[in-house]
């Protein structure tokens, strides 16, 4: 058969391959071309959930309790549907607050409490240790199986080999080395390990392929398909019993408990938090993962039952441990390569779990357990140490070794007594204790630190008492009377029948009591007191994270003074001086400041530095470090509440503003223009008044002057006297005209004018106007022609006013004709639903600039040739008002030196419009 050496070589080669993948992944990440930035890799990394428990243990469980292996996978499927809310919140919060572990998360939520963080870490470590032991057991067992087949029959439990001869010990050591190499080469502020994720994703593929390969082999190789396999199984009474889903009440509860436990485990296991939250690259990956991950679980479970049944049928009862069927079945049929593939698959499953879980745990131990304590020990003067990064890495590595050592110890002491799956469920029950604090923290603002502490402690104690210690007792490490009689012989305190609750399996029993205590105390104690300022602010930030923009407002709760240099030095101590420089430079750029020296040490910068440091040592410790540099003034609760309210209002506003910023910009622009216009109108009004005054005084001046002259000089020559009188008369007329026009315009504009509409034949009106001016045209030698067709419909308007308009246009045209062959043409036409009148001249034309201006009051085109312009400047303004009163338009088209065409329209009365389309 197989000897040890090739298997070991293959194992090392495989791990080497994983390393290569990890290194490649990291290299790509550093160059910016991440290979893990897609949802498929993300989903595959989540499949680290499937450990050797899945690979070997499911088959074992199926062989003993039929369908009972399935709920562990149904639970995550159900929870995946809720990921849309739950996991998304977790990811977003963690990104915003640089949270790097589940302990950090819970501690941060409840006011950055070191105590909570430490408690969570301890529970996590104690809870996961059995699970790690399980993996160790699987690796060594699979190694022994493949090596010693066909001698590895009954679950060989050599009574505690002295550990130096126990190959599991070496496995543990090697795993420690691998984990250290995979996960602690450097400190990353984000705690992301892209290479690791790539390797894990690869392992997920390998274990899926391996398992399905074995499944196919068993179903179609050893049997003739599902039909054949199952019918043969049914033929055997014991197996048939397995298949029929009997319904003892115990089964119901177990089923439900396992579903619930696995639902919680998929988000609360440290390794799951690590890959799902911390290592997440892009929130959008969650979407695909929601259904792809359950799909993976489905795929890897298709062949569990066939393999189990196949094994049971193939091997005489009780001779081979069902946990090993995945290996032994191929081996028994001489399929060595398949067996090796299966072995590698199992190795993938185990190593993946151990590495990720251990890294996650070491991060927690370092950031949330050790560092807070060390920082508190003033004797160490850690706050004065220049470079802490080496210390941090050292602590992480020590933690990895510690965790694996504990795993081995547990395996050594207690592991042999249990089937694989049962050990795993103990771990699930432990991390389930985080659920009230975590889920409550995500959705309920009322959760307080004290509530979380008491709930967590109570749940943990019950777990300890009803699951962990009994597992020791069952392995003989504690007296068995502990189980059978309860502590101190008190019946009601029997660990697995607390208060007399019987009939539940141990898992359900523990879940029941621990959840009652945990949830009860969490809610009860939280409601007992109001949340503190820090808790309230964190609660808002966490629970409302989906509704608001990225949370930067945590910085508002600091009032303090610091210098930029201090902060930069502080940061440098954790991530190295060069990286601190880069970080500050990037921050300055984001604030639009070119030089770091110009940064101000305000709350925003402090928060930024704090979050950077939190990536290295956890958020609770980060706060302390920053506090040592920033002289902080404590805030009263009212102040903080005011700030929070202000902040949440501001956040809400900023969100609305973001959405409407485009509209606002456009509106502002329009408003600005309107304001300018208003100001101009105001100025114009003032101008208007002063211009009117000026315009009125000018003719008055002439009138008065000449009147006085005539009066004082009775002996003037007749000719001169006549001339002067003429001037007086003309200027009086001019004055009167001007006054009339001003009043007219004022009346029209203010709406006080009288309009007397009647049916107008425009031809007639135009003809009358041309007649009135014919004299002047003749005098000036301007030819006047008309183009007035017959049969046009009438319009309803005030005759005098329209006449006024036509007259105005005609006289303007006359005024601006300078050539000897001047020609003015008046045209009348029907255009769509209106009458249109054009007055065209070939005079001097109007420049583009003036075209905009001539319709305004008192604006005239300055005629350089003749000096002062003729007319009062009000004519066109009045004409426009009149035309617009009847909903028409008055405009000009002109070119300098060529001529101008003034046009206006008068809409026809509606009822007269022929056959308008609806």
């Amino acid at each position, binding site marked *: 058969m197989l000897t040890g050496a090739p298997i070991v070589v293959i194992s090392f080669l495989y791990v080497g391959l994983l390393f290569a993948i990890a290194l490649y992944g990291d290299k790509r990440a550093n160059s910016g071309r991440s290979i893990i930035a897609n949802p498929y890799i993300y989903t595959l990394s989540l499949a680290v959930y499937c450990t050797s428990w899945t690979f070997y243990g499911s088959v074992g469980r199926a062989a003993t309790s039929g*369908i009972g292996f*399935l*709920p562990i996978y*149904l639970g995550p*499927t*159900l*929870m*995946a*549907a*809720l990921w*849309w*809310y739950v996991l*998304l919140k977790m990811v977003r919060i963690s990104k915003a607050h640089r949270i790097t572990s589940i302990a950090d998360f819970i501690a941060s939520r409840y006011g950055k409490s070191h105590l909570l963080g430490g408690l969570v870490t301890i529970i996590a470590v104690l809870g996961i240790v059995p699970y790690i032991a399980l993996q160790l057991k699987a690796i060594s067992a699979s190694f022994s199986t493949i090596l010693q087949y066909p001698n590895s029959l009954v679950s060989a439990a050599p009574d505690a080999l002295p550990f130096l001869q126990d190959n599991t010990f070496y496995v543990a050591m090697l795993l420690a080395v691998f984990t250290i190499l995979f996960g602690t080469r450097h400190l990353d502020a984000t705690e992301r390990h892209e290479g690791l994720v790539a390797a894990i994703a690869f392992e997920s593929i390998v274990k899926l392929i391996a398992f399905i390969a074995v499944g196919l082999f068993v179903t179609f190789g050893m049997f003739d*398909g*599902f*039909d*054949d*396999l*199952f*019918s043969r199984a*049914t033929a055997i009474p014991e197996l048939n019993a397995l*298949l*029929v*889903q*009997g*319904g003892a009440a115990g*089964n*119901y509860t177990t*089923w*439900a408990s396992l*579903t619930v436990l696995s639902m919680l485990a998929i988000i609360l296991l440290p390794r799951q938090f690590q890959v799902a939250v911390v290592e997440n690259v892009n*929130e959008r990956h969650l*979407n*695909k993962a*929601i*259904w*792809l991950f*359950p*799909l993976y679980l*489905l795929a890897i479970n*298709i062949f569990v*039952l066939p393999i189990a049944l196949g094994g049971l049928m193939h091997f005489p009862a009780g001779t081979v441990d069902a946990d090993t069927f995945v290996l032994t079945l191929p081996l028994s049929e001489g399929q060595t390569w398949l067996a090796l593939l299966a072995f590698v698959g199992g190795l993938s499953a185990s190593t993946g779990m151990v590495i990720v879980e251990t890294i996650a745990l070491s991060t927690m131990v370092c950031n949330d357990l050790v560092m807070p304590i060390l920082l508190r020990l003033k004797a160490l003067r850690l706050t004065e140490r220049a470079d802490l990064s080496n210390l941090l890495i050292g602590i992480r590595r020590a933690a990895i070794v510690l965790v694996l050592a504990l795993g081995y110890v547990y395996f050594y002491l207690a592991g042999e007594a249990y089937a694989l799956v049962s050990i795993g469920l103990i771990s699930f029950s432990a991390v389930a204790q985080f659920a009230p604090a975590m889920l409550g923290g995500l959705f309920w603002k009322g959760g307080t630190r004290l509530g979380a502490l008491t709930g967590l402690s109570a749940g943990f104690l019950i777990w300890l008492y009803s699951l962990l210690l009994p597992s020791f007792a069952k392995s003989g490490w504690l007296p068995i009377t502990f189980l059978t009689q309860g502590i101190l012989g008190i019946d009601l305190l029997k660990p697995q029948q607390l208060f007399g609750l019987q009939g539940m399996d141990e898992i359900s029993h523990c879940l029941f009591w621990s959840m009652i205590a945990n949830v009860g105390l969490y809610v009860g104690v939280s409601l007992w007191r109001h949340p503190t300022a820090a808790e309230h602010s964190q609660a808002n930030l966490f629970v409302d994270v*989906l509704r608001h923009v990225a949370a930067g407002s945590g910085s508002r709760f600091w009032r303090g003074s610091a210098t930029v240099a201090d902060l930069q030095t502080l940061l440098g101590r954790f991530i190295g001086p060069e990286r601190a420089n880069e970080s500050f430079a990037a921050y300055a750029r984001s604030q639009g400041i070119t030089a770091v020296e110009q940064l101000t040490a305000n709350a925003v910068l402090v928060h930024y530095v704090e979050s950077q440091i939190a990536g290295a040592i956890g958020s609770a410790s980060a706060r302390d470090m920053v506090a040592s540099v920033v002289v902080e003034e404590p805030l009263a609760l009212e102040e903080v509440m005011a700030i929070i309210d202000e902040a949440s209002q501001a956040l809400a506003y900023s969100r609305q503003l973001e959405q409407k910023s485009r509209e606002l910009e456009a509106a502002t622009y329009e408003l600005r223009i309107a304001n300018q216009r208003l100001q101009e109108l105001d100025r114009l009004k003032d101008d208007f008044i002063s211009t009117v005054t000026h315009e009125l005084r000018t003719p008055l001046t002439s009138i008065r002057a000449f009147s006085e002259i005539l009066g004082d000089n009775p002996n003037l020559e007749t000719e001169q006297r006549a001339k002067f009188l003429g001037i007086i008369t003309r200027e009086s007329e001019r004055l009167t005209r001007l006054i009339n026009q001003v009043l007219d315009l004022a009346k029209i504009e203010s709406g006080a004018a009288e309009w007397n509409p009647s049916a107008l034949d425009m031809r007639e009106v135009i003809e009358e106007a041309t007649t009135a001016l014919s004299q002047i045209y003749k005098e000036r030698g301007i030819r006047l022609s008309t183009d007035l067709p017959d049969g046009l419909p009438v319009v309803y308007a005030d005759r005098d006013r329209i006449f006024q308009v036509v007259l105005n246009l005609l006289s303007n045209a006359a005024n601006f004709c300078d050539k000897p062959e001047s020609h003015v043409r008046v045209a009348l036409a029907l255009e769509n639903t209106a009458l249109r009148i054009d007055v065209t001249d070939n005079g001097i034309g109007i420049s583009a600039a003036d075209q905009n201006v001539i319709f305004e009051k008192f604006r005239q085109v300055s005629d350089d040739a003749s000096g002062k312009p003729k007319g009062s400047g009000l004519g066109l303004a009045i004409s426009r008002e009149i035309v617009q009163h009847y909903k028409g338009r008055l405009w000009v088209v002109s070119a300098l030196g060529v001529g101008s065409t003034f046009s206006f329209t008068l809409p026809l009365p509606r009822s007269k419009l022929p056959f308008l389309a609806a």
Partner: protein
Amino acid sequence: MIRPTFKGQRLVALFMLGCLLFNYPLLTLFASDIRIWGIPLVYVYLYVAWAALISAMALVIERRDQ
């Protein structure tokens, strides 16, 4: 990022459906001796229901919003 909450609500609904489908009261309905391709009804039901739920979740996620 504004996520359409309709998807989220649908997923929650699927969650509740799943809880119903995968738990005991409903499961006992299928605890019979009927075999499909030799496989007991319960297993077929569970796997089929599981696949159906996953497909429903995929549909909810991947479908473009109207």
